[in-house]
């Protein structure tokens, strides 16, 4: 009887420590969906590149604008899906979606992420197109590693995989679309599924 009381106390301590320092309601399902958006985006990008009207895609061409639009759409869809599903999951488990831990998570995610985004735009201005895909992969990986301290720890190893992929991609810039799909598509789906099975489902049981 007394024993169960101690066990419950220890459980309470662990829950409160986690809840106060990490945003644990990050949705695994949103990772899977982000991966699917990325793959669909990559297929349409491949289609555009394959059936282009000119030998080269220049920044002035319609194709270039279409590619940028696809990338932006994938990003906006992924971020909003993650936000909506995580907020819903937080509500279900009684965690506040907008609290100190979720704010900390976002700030620490977006510092390296925004740096990478701006860096990518500057590379584009310098016409270093081959580096854009690896740079987005590397900075996204660094963002995940940085954010993992404020949410599920699983994000850390996902981040490291993105960094490795980005570095390999730097050596083979011609296969950028392939690496990009492998990272943002496949890795997201893989990790999203693991997180879904590990955390999301357990919660509804």
């Amino acid at each position, binding site marked *: 009887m007394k*024993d169960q009381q*101690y*066990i419950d*106390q*220890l459980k*309470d*301590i662990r829950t*409160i*420590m986690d*809840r*106060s*320092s990490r945003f644990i309601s990050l949705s695994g399902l949103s990772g899977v969906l982000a991966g699917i958006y990325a793959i669909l985006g990559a297929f349409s990008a491949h289609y555009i590149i394959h059936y282009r009207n000119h030998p080269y895609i220049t920044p002035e061409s319609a194709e270039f604008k279409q590619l940028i639009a696809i990338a932006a759409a994938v990003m906006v869809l992924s971020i909003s899906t993650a936000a909506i599903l995580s907020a819903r999951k937080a509500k279900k488990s009684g965690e*506040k979606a907008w*609290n*100190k831990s979720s704010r900390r998570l976002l700030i620490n995610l977006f510092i390296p992420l925004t740096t990478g985004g701006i860096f990518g735009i500057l590379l584009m201005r310098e016409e270093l197109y081959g580096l854009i895909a690896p740079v987005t992969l590397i900075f996204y990986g660094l963002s995940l590693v940085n954010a993992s301290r404020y949410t599920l720890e699983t994000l850390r190893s996902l981040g490291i995989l993105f960094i490795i992929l980005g570095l390999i991609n730097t050596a083979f810039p011609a296969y950028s679309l392939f690496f990009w799909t492998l990272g943002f598509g496949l890795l997201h789906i893989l990790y999203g599924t693991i997180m879904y099975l590990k955390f999301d489902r357990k919660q509804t049981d």
Partner: protein
Amino acid sequence: MKHVISHINKAFDHRIRLGIMSVLMVNEWMEFTALKELLEVTDGNLASHVKALEQEGFIVVTKQFIGKKPNTRYAATAAGKLAFEQHINALEQLIKQSR
């Protein structure tokens, strides 16, 4: 057995006080309002437990103004952290012994 029980700290023998310490073990500091939300307690309830821990010297309070809003922050002292760690260890020991 006896010395294990002596580490079970009476100051932590309450759900809310246990909660306050748990939060302050993993966060450098926490505001009153955030603490209230995390532990799902009323103002008065939280205030009285915070006071008890403060009197034991386990936490410190800093009051300041952010603009015109008063802002109260709590942090665990070194003594508080040590005492809480011993408390957790004692709990674990007790569970182990009775198995």
